[in-house]
């Protein structure tokens, strides 16, 4: 029992280390800070709006399914969506908490076994997943209970929510633990091995799903295919038929998973654990010093510090490079070859070509808006921020170089997006030109906004590099602000289309207004006091 108390205490400490936003309550005890109050109100109001629409969307989905006589599919769909989101989130959490973090070096100094720490970390990931589940499934549970009028849905959701994170996280955690052990034995960088392990796991799961779908026969209708595809967890069909009492009893599986992970990690890791980073090869060669301009040198420094750090690369580039691939993938899953041909015909049809441009632009604008490279640019400096302050290169110029660097990354995303639009959806070169031009303008604006926000109040105190991106309120603020502006633009474009504005007029309006906003943000950055 004492051992388990220790494991849960460790988990509590690890939670505090990794989720510094949980220490927000300490802020409340201090004298209210205007910045914190305004930011909290803004974030809460935006989150409230999103949550309201999420609630409404789920309600409409349930209505739609009920009309089709598929009310039962709702719970399955909600749990499946939660499982998908948890898979992505938990993969990131596992990489961050198990691999990137150096806390284990300090925690191993205490009289605890490695498996205690690993189980503490596992519980930390699970607790975070519970938090996400609460947000995702509570509206679904309320809607379903309201419509069904009995408590059985509540029991189903509670028990499924209790075991779902374990079903998602457990195999991944075991994979990562094995990878860490291999990294220890080989004395190699643990991050690459763990990331490879997770990728192998997901690739295996995807191949498994595709192979099982391949055996289902060609004549099956879409509904059956969807039904087969959305399986939240193994044995779901048996589970859903359980008596409510038995479903509640299933909650005990959560404790079983923790116990099994504890003993498995002990079995894999053993009594001793050590971290090895790749040894830096010492290469003695003639040292030559080449001078270059401040701009070039600073840009190079930004590039080197970003791309040599896997934490930044994985956390910073995920949104930009994964999103473009999700688009054709989603089409691939939901549409057959005939549908894709129809979409291509629509894209090139004169009456729809401008709508296709606006759709592509919306994808690019939103992809650029979730770019976290700019909004964490000052925060990533961390403890070495003093260098930025003492060098004779004004902070505003440094901010512009940082914006230039993050824009260059956004442009890489735009190029990938445009290539997909060209190759997959057969957009014309003129369409691609318009999309690239306006998309780059928006990317410049978003990056300048991100840099401006992070410049004002950078988060410099962190122990793990991921905190500078993932737990940075500036990043959240910047993303929300950019999405809010994007939504404003979408409404404006829609209104202009309704009022019969020409395509050229709409593009000119978008370009000019974005240019004005760019100038305003530049002015804001330039007015920064040294």
């Amino acid at each position, binding site marked *: 029992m004492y051992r388990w108390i220790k494991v849960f205490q460790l988990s509590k400490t690890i939670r505090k280390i990794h989720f510094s936003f949980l220490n927000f309550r300490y802020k409340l005890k201090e004298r209210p800070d205007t910045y914190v109050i305004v930011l909290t109100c803004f974030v809460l109001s935006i989150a409230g709006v999103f949550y309201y629409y999420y609630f409404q969307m789920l309600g409409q989905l349930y209505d739609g399914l009920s009309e089709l006589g598929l009310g039962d599919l709702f719970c399955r769909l909600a749990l499946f969506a939660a499982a998908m989101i948890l898979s992505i989130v938990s993969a990131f959490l596992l990489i961050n908490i198990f691999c990137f973090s150096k806390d284990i070096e300090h925690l191993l100094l205490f009289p605890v076994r490695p498996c205690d720490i690993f189980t503490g970390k596992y519980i930390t990931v699970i607790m975070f997943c519970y938090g996400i589940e609460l947000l995702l499934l509570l509206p679904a549970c309320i809607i379903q209970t309201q419509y069904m009028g009995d408590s059985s849905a509540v029991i189903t959701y509670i028990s499924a929510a209790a075991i779902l994170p374990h079903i998602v996280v457990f195999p991944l955690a075991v994979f990562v633990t094995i990878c860490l052990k291999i990294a220890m034995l080989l004395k190699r960088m643990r991050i690459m091995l763990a990331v490879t392990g997770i990728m192998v796991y997901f690739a295996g799961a995807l191949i498994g799903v595709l192979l099982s779908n391949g055996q289902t026969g060609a004549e099956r209708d879409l509904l059956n295919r969807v039904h087969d595809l959305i399986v939240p967890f193994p044995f779901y069909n048996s589970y859903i038929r359980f008596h409510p009492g038995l479903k509640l009893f299933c909650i005990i599986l959560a404790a079983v998973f923790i116990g099994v992970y504890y003993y498995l990690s002990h079995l894999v890791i053993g009594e001793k654990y050590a971290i090895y*980073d790749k*040894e*830096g*090869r*010492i*290469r*003695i*060669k003639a*040292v*030559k*010093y*080449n*001078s*270059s*301009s*401040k701009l*070039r*040198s*600073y840009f*190079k*420094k930004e590039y*080197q*510090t970003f791309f*040599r*750090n896997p934490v930044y690369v994985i956390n910073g580039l995920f949104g930009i490079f994964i999103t473009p691939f999700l688009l054709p993938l989603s089409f691939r899953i939901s549409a057959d070859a005939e549908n894709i041909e129809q979409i291509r015909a629509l894209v090139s049809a004169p009456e729809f070509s401008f709508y296709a441009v606006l759709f592509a632009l919306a994808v690019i604008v939103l992809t650029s808006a979730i770019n976290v490279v700019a909004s964490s640019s000052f925060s990533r400096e*961390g*403890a*070495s921020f*003093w*260098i930025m*302050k*003492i*060098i*004779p*290169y*004004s902070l505003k110029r440094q901010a512009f170089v940082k914006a230039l660097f993050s824009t260059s990354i956004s442009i890489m995303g735009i190029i990938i997006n445009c290539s997909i639009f060209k190759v997959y959806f057969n957009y014309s070169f003129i369409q691609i030109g318009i999309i690239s031009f306006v998309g780059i303008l928006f990317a410049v604006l978003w990056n300048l906004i991100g840099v401006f926000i992070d410049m004002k109040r950078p988060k410099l105190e962190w122990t793990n590099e991921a905190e500078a991106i993932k737990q940075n309120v500036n990043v959240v603020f910047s993303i929300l602000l950019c999405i809010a502006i994007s939504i404003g633009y979408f409404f404006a474009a829609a209104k202009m289309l309704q009022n019969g504005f020409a395509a050229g007029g709409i593009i000119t309006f978008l370009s000019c207004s974005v240019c004005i906003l760019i100038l305003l943000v530049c002015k804001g950055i330039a007015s920064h*006091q*040294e």
Partner: protein
Amino acid sequence: MLEVSGLSFHYQPHVPVLTDLTFSVLDGEIVGLLGKNGVGKTTALKLILGLLPLEKGSVCLGNYSLDLHPMQYKKQMNYVSDSHDIYNNLTGKEYLNFIADMYEVPSETRSKIYTPLIEAFQVEKYLNSPIKKLSHGTKQKIAVIASLVNDPLLWVLDEPMTGLDVEAVQVLKELIQSRAAHGKSVLFSSHILEICENLCDKIVIMQAGTLQKTIELRDNPSYISLEDIYLEVVNDVPMDKGFSIKQNNP
């Protein structure tokens, strides 16, 4: 010459960290900043370096004020932090080049400045390794080398000996003395009184965010240690020995 006058600063309202701090560092002078933990030494250094915004008072180096001519001011000074936090993802050589670029030092000049320092600190073999792989001492050596690329009028060092090996400490001491001999000023904070005693021309003792005493070490009789003077000043014990102490805030 560095002139700090009337420097005041607070992190929280009504809790001043520095109050009316005034002192100067003459050309060719080595000045040590001493004081108990939390008296505001680091805050004072941060204000002098421009790491914190000036609230009250002024800091001038030569003809340039930090407030009015920040870029010219920064070009004339350089700093070695006590935290060893430099760009970990760059190699030693890349870092040295980056700092030299920022100070717009031509290739030939930087080579002339860096080469003897690299040899003196024996860091050639580490220059192509990422800084994050280096020990604290080696990082500190690279930070020291980089900080001299612009031949600063004022060299500010915060606990510079931390993590350095015996040979490197000796090299650093010689460097400090050599800079002073060439008319350049050095300001550093340290808790090691012996080093201050051997190196400094002047000691500035801070207490409760203000200047308590300025001690001209050259004028003091050699048989009395700095430790005695420091403890006497900090603990406010009356003194009957023949020290030359300028009381700034009676």
